[in-house]
């Protein structure tokens, strides 16, 4: 455990992303599934910032700013959909939202 390098940050990013995927797979509460997606977005942000710092390019940091804006838009629309679904079904169980199943 001497010097902290790019690899340490990338490994942490992979672990956080995987935790988010596992949350999406194992939880049925729509709001928790949403929070798992936010964990995944943050893991991707960490990888972007790591590469931006490592190769000295500002593109990665600008991309993180845009990802944060998209995450805000996604959270607003997604939570509005959850509220609308809750009005119809009185539940946020993702398995009860199967109207569009083929």
């Amino acid at each position, binding site marked *: 455990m001497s010097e902290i390098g790019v690899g340490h940050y990338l490994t942490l990013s992979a672990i956080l992303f995987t935790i988010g995927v596992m949350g999406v797979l194992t939880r049925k509460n729509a709001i928790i599934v949403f929070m798992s997606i936010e964990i995944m977005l943050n893991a991707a942000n960490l990888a972007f910032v790591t590469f931006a710092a490592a190769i000295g390019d500002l593109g990665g940091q600008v991309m*993180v700013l845009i990802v944060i804006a998209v995450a*805000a838009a996604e959270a607003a629309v997604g939570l509005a959909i959850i509220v609308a679904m809750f009005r119809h079904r009185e539940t946020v169980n993702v398995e009860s939202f199967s109207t569009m199943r083929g």
Partner: protein
Amino acid sequence: MSGIAVAFWALATLAVVCSLLVITSRNPVASVLFLVVSFFCLAGLFVTLHSHFLAAIQVLVYAGAIMVLFLFVVMLLNLGTPQWFDFAGPPVKIVALVLGVGFVGALVGAGIGDFEPAARGPAAGIAPDLLGSTEAIASALYSAYYLPFLVTALLLLVAMVGAVVLARRER
């Protein structure tokens, strides 16, 4: 160990533990609060990478605005108590665990642990602690990246209108 190393290990451990608590906690309010702690840890990690502006934005937008929205919806829908349907069955959990551990194992086995990018970008001459400053990001955002910036503004407008239309009560 240097100061950066101590900060990295402390923040990384806390971030992973809090993220695990987010997906394992039965109470949605506890999940939201653990997620806020996890976002603060990521902001700290951004500081260790000299990205001070992004760390501030992370705290303001993510830990501030987005998580307040989540907490607001959890309280509004009265979901602060554990729900009977909360977790998938044991088979799904085992499959998810195996896939997750396998995915991280495959990435580490492929060598991301000791990956060092060789290419140097256009800003390689700038001192690393100036790269993440507000001034550097602003000049990049308003010159080279002005088009994505404008599209993002349009996206936020569309999302705002969409959220209002979706959440409006029908009559």
